[in-house]
């Protein structure tokens, strides 16, 4: 197995694509409402920006240790201490620079910029993977193809951890696969630093080192007879251990620790609390083929079924093609040990996130964002297989040049994907593919189509137009509706008029948002009765399926 050269043209093409993704995300940010988690992370961005200002002021006064004291760290990092701070630090830094200091971006966009940058970095990563392992055509097409998955494009907007951890998860496996081929020491060090940042983003990646180690052990002993002499025997075993594994404890862990000031004091207790929070995470209700999944055990099929029905069909074909390719690399006749190892690593990177969520006790409430982290690998490798098929056909039919055939196919695919992406740009988390019948088929089968109050912007426009001054709107916070912080930030951003007040008591409300989730239909009935009407002032719909509604009191 050899890697292609990444030349000057590749740098230009990959950076142009990354920039295009960044701009596409930022220019559509105003179409995507604030999800529940953003309410928390935007608040942490504010406190982190305050911390940066505090640190600058302290250092300016000559109080160099003040920013690092226990009192300061507790003051600025206690909120949301159940999550590491690497990405939140970036949220805060971006907010500090682009909103507080330069005022180049709005409040929301200054924080969401970080997510968009991670989306751009993911586009670059996909290009890199496609170019080194497959072809330039794959490298160019795969990032476009990847971001034309409505769930991916939707999540790329959000000031959350989901796209950053997708980048880090896939990135670690891809970089490790590259390392297996080129054995670069600098890359080994880079992987360890990368993993440290990944650990400081979200706990998903804790599974990576043991997983990679297990794969390496299996490969080592399976191909023992063909190993070089210096890698045999007891000492040889240690010599054969890939360099990134040696770096991980000594580099990744310090990177993780340094990036998270909260752990600098009471380390064991605070780290224990962090692990306990995720080990005993609460469950939130999710609907899957009419089943109300509110507590374990959850069906094994859930993440597989959701992946199958929430991925646009062309990309789904790529997923299957990629898995076939990795299996071929792993088990195919005449493959080299390196090819087998790379096949196993990429297969694990692509499918382990789904397999993990299949375990009956693992929380599933976040939907596919919790297990889409391996999809860059699947899309890229799968597209390479498909383009190889196009090349094979053009070789049999020489009138069409190979690259022309591939270009036509890619253009046709992107064209076909415009409509679903346009329809779901506001409801990306509610996208279901044509195999289940789209939005209507999913609704007919009682699949989860809404998640915690993000689908609000069309309602805000009507509310602003009709609400009298000082009106109160019910935001449904207690029932997986709009996060209270998100409501405040919607006002701050100008999406909701500043004089409109929020409430979580229907009795006090003049208006009410309703965010559809099957288990919360009782809120709708309470609302009908309390307001004396079932007539919405506005409905937010796609393909006649409603996601959320605004009501006004008539009695």
């Amino acid at each position, binding site marked *: 197995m050899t890697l292609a050269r990444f030349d000057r043209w590749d740098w230009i093409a990959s950076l142009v694509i990354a920039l295009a993704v960044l701009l596409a995300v930022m220019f559509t940010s105003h179409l995507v409402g604030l999800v529940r988690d953003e309410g928390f992370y935007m608040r942490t961005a504010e406190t982190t920006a305050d911390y940066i200002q505090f640190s600058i002021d302290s250092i300016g006064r000559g109080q160099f240790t003040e920013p690092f004291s226990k009192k300061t760290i507790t003051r600025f990092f206690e909120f949301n201490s159940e999550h590491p701070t690497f990405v939140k630090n970036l949220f805060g830094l971006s907010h500090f620079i682009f909103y507080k200091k330069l005022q180049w971006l709005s409040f929301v966009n200054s924080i969401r910029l970080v997510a968009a940058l991670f989306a751009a970095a993911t586009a670059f990563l996909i290009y890199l993977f496609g170019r080194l392992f497959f072809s330039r055509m794959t490298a160019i097409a795969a990032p476009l193809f990847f971001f034309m998955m409505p769930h991916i494009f939707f999540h790329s907007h959000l000031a959350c951890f989901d796209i950053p951890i997708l980048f880090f998860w896939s990135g670690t496996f891809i970089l490790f696969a590259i390392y297996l081929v080129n054995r670069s020491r600098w890359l080994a060090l880079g992987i360890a630093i990368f993993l440290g940042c990944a650990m400081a983003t979200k706990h998903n990646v804790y599974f990576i080192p043991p997983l990679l180690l297990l794969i390496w052990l299996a490969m080592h002993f399976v191909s023992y007879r063909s190993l070089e002499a210096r890698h045999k025997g007891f000492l040889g075993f240690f010599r054969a251990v890939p360099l990134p594994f040696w770096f991980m404890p000594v580099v990744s862990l310090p990177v993780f620790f340094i990036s998270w000031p909260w752990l600098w004091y009471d380390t064991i207790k605070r780290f224990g609390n962090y692990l306990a929070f995720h080990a005993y995470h609460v469950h939130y*209700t999710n609907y899957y083929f*009419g089943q*109300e999944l*509110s*507590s374990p055990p959850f069906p094994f099929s859930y993440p597989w079924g959701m992946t199958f029905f929430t991925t*646009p*069909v*062309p990309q*789904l*074909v*790529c997923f*299957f*093609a990629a898995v*076939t*390719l990795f299996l*071929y690399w792993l088990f*195919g006749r005449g493959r080299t040990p390196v090819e087998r190892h790379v096949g196993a690593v990429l297969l694990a990177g692509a499918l382990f996130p789904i397999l993990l969520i299949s375990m009956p006790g693992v929380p599933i409430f976040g939907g596919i964002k919790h297990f889409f982290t391996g999809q860059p690998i699947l899309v890229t490798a799968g597209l*390479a*297989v*498909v*383009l*190889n*098929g196009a090349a*094979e056909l053009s070789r049999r039919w020489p009138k069409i040049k190979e690259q022309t055939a591939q270009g036509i*196919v890619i253009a*046709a*695919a992107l064209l*076909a*994907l415009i*409509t*679903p992406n346009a*329809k779901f740009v506001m409801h990306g988390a509610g996208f279901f*593919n*044509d195999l289940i019948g*789209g*939005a*209507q088929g999913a*609704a*007919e089968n*009682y699949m989860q189509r809404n998640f915690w109050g993000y689908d609000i912007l069309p309602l805000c426009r009507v509310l602003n137009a009709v609400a009298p001054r000082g009106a109160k709107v019910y935001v449904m916070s207690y029932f997986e509706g709009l996060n209270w912080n998100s409501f405040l930030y919607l006002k701050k951003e100008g999406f909701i008029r500043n004089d409109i007040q929020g409430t979580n008591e229907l009795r006090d409300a003049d208006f009410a948002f309703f965010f559809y989730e*099957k*288990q*919360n*239909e*009782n809120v709708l*009935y*309470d609302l*009908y*009765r309390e307001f*004396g*009407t*079932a*007539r*919405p002032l506005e*409905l937010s*719909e796609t*393909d*006649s*399926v*409603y996601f959320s509604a605004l009501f006004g009191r008539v009695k």
Partner: protein
Amino acid sequence: MISTRLSTAFFILFLAAILTTGIFWLFLSDRHGFTAQDEPLIAEIINREFRTGDIIFPAPDWDIGFTRYLRDGITDISYTLDAFTKEELSDLNNNGVNFLWFVVDGEDRWADIRGRFGLTEHGRFAAGDALIVKAQSAGDAVAKLFDFVDDLALAKEVYFADANGGKEPCVWERERWQCGRQEWTYVGPQRTLMAGRWQRANWAHPRTERTLHVVFENTVGATALILGTSFLERAYREKEGQPVRVAVTADGKELLRYDNENIKKLYRSRVALPEGAKMIDLSFWVKFDGARHFVFNGYLGK
């Protein structure tokens, strides 16, 4: 790369996927539900024909565009038809409801619903491609005489009792029995989901180690009692939530006792009343009241 045959196969599959994706999202993704033209027509018919006590079942339940044109006051709309069994729908119909209205997107769907629930048609109205059907369930052996929800104001007495026999009476105000200063301590009607089914039911959140008594006088000469109890979703989502002990007595004689477990379930009971039974006491007790969002409904009948 993999074999030529396999990559060619994936390429052909990919081409098919492009084609189906393009066609589906351009022409087929919005082919069900109610058209924008039909929605005002549907609402016009309902606005004219709907009477208090009726219930509307839209099918499909995900397209509620027609509600934009409904007149104020029409609020009994259920989006939970699929959750009902034939028996439960019949019970709902008997539970103070005059007619069931089905707003369907075609004849096929109506035929399926009618067959599943054994409904009797009382009228039909066309609204473009949509169909509005006025129907009733096949009926129930017990004819309703006194409804625990509609006639809640007529309860003889509502109170919390402690273990020592102390009584804290509830007072009727704002269309409910208010039982204390806290917002949730009341007995009052609402439209809600009992194990996923739209119901009219009385909120009756119990209190720690106290018994909530709701006493009805049998002035209608009823000989049977139907009782439905259930936790709401917010309650059974709490893993360690305590069950509610439900008991029914007639003139002090116990007729029914069970534990309403902390699960998604509609407990439905039918009991015969002793001849000449006067005072019917429904009582609800809980060990610990954290998030015990609890409701009941039912009726006295013959």
